[in-house]
């Protein structure tokens, strides 16, 4: 299962950030949300972004105490907070900015897919974020380009 993000459907409402932070912090704190809606303001365009759960995670590579592991079956990359020494090497290593550091607790943190039921996908009102089987997400992506092509063809025919 994978987070499928379709940024064309994102309205920038940040419901994902609100509910993600509440799930993990029991308070509303978008700064600590594991998912972030990136904004391009002119005109308003939005892209939700979170950890992509790399198959060869740079964060795990960089961790000196092996606190970051990848579950072979689910593909989930997770931080063991008990092992983490708070050195932030993983934060530096992640090329996407998906790993963050919690100053209050002294540990690194990232998207944990909410143990298989991600709040962001559950609450997103437009379907911009969905939690789907990998095969399905690929099938959808595959359909997007050709669908656009077909629409373009109709547009030209129409004219």
């Amino acid at each position, binding site marked *: 299962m994978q987070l499928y993000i379709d940024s064309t459907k994102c*309205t920038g*409402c940040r*419901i994902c950030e*609100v509910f993600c932070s509440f799930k993990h912090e029991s*308070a509303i704190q978008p700064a600590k949300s594991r998912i972030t809606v990136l*904004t391009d303001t002119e005109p308003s365009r939005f892209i939700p972004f979170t950890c992509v759960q790399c198959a060869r995670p740079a964060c795990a590579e960089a961790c000196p105490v092996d606190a970051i592991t990848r579950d072979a079956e689910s593909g989930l990359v997770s931080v063991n907070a008990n092992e983490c020494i708070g050195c932030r090497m993983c934060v530096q290593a992640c090329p996407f900015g998906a790993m963050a550091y919690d100053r209050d607790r002294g540990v690194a943190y990232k998207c944990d897919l909410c143990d298989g039921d991600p709040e962001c996908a559950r609450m997103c*009102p437009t379907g911009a974020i969905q939690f789907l089987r990998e095969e399905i997400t690929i099938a959808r992506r595959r359909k997007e380009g050709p669908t656009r092509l077909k629409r373009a063809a109709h547009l030209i025919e129409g004219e």
Partner: protein
Amino acid sequence: MFPYKGYAGRYLRVNLTTGEIQVCELDATFAETWLGGNGFGTKILWDEVGRDVDPLSPDNRLIIATGPICGTLMPNSSRSEVIAKSPLTGIYGDANVGGMFGPELKFAGYDMIIFEGRAPEPVYLVVEDDRVQLREARHLWGKTVSEAQALVQQELGDDNFKFATIGPAGENLVRYASIQMTPNRSAARSGVGAVMGSKRLKCIAVRGFGKVPIASPREFYEIAVQAHKKLLQNEFYKPVSRYGTAGLVTLMNRMGRFPTKNFQMGSFPFADDISAETLHDRYFVNDVGCFNCPIHCDKVYRVRDGEFAGAATNSLEYETLGSLGAGVWNNNLASIIRANVMCDELGLDTISAGRTIAFAMELWEKGILTGSDTGGIALEWGDYNTILDLLQHVAHRQGFGNLLAEGTRRAAALIGKGAEQYAMEVKGQEIAAQDGRAQRSMGLAHVTSTRGADHLKGFPVLDETGYPSEGVRRYGTQYMPEIVDPLATRYKPMLVIDGENFGAVIDSSGNCKSGGTFVLAEIYWQEMADAIRTATGMDMTVERLKTIGERIYNLQRCYGVLHGISRKDDRLPRRFKEEPNPSGHAKGQTFDVDPLLDEYYQLRGWDVKTGIPTRAKLRELGLEDVADRLGIM
């Protein structure tokens, strides 16, 4: 220590004259009594800004306040409230706004900012958690909203700041100047932007990394998730999320409730040219949601070709299609998009700006204004190039624009020659795109609003197009069918009063009146009381919440009374009573609001002769000191 969650528990007081910034702890009793946003601002205005204070003087306050629900899990919890004595009306003024600013202020750790004084030179305020500072803004003065924000963003080296900014109109003290908030939302009414300009405050930039804590997380979560679900299932979710408020153009036009040619007509023959469907088909780019709102009534529209190519805007509302479209007889939709962009960049209220231009156009039509008055500008209906020029002139107070910058009431007094009978305003504020001849409750709400003509105080939407299911849910079967019939007057004072009190609570909570409370009416007294109780830990009940709403509204009225407001001021322009509406369902209708006022005052517990709250009512609301100050026996 402030005992309640949901709030940040602190606020800022910024003296712009001295540059002193105080971090103050919120008082528990103050929060219990006034709830937040609207209530906080009303009470502070009453306490700190007396009768003799000129709205544009350093002694006025500019208050930006959120509430306990703002920045939380509840849907549509994006709102903040701007309160000041209004330079347009001279009485209580406020403007409510969505977007991202209010929640960000709470994440930075503040429920409210109170500005007082006047900076010797232009400044802007930066709030980044505990780091709060005033910075020099001489280089920003004169810039449009987006130019100024881009410069500040560059200086701060972070594009995640959320802004509240004035344009040239606010700097030049245009009496209906707005404050623009990220992303392109407007705190537009009451001229709050001019108050900000008078304080030489160009911009507020906020970034917050902190949290809003919740008293009963599990319970509050359930309530919020339920509210989200109900909104998505609401019968109006699809049309409102697809078209936003623009969807009202077609509906209101059919009703004869779409003011056209400065209210000479109630329907615009070219309404299809400026309808939501046309807008969507030609110019839609994408949806935009305010903070934690699933409805995303806001949209980006872009004009791709033609004379206005490149104009791109957020939030082109029904009101603007009314004021800069039908109201001025303009059916060029691309020009309305351009006008909306200009108002947002110059920092103008689209409603008052459009209505003031419509007023001038009618005076031109009637021969009261001529080329010698306007500096040679011809004011022909529908001439959109002139409309766009006038917006520039108003914002910079150039030539004839200087007169229009005063708003219709003052402009009419300066013009004379009977111009005042074409000034479509109540208590100095221009009437938005409603018409009491086509919807009685709205006509009443226009005059009983505490900030001058306004559709959003009473916000009677149940009888707008008829909303029987909600009419029954909210009030039971005994008031049907009149309560949802736009032309019936029966039960309308009750409907308006309930809306005013509930609206005062919503505007104090940080929730949205357009979102889940009035339009997609899923959140009502019980839902709001539950949300506030579980978010804050306050012992909140429906009865207590109703008292808070009534208390806030009464104090706003009393602030008017302090400035000489009474029954004599609760009146509509002559046109509604004397000129029958020529079109739509309301064809042939006139409207006299006066007979409805007796019942309204009685239900309010106000003196029927004067429209002034009685001592007994004020005592009941814990406001006996207010009665003392006003000399009410």
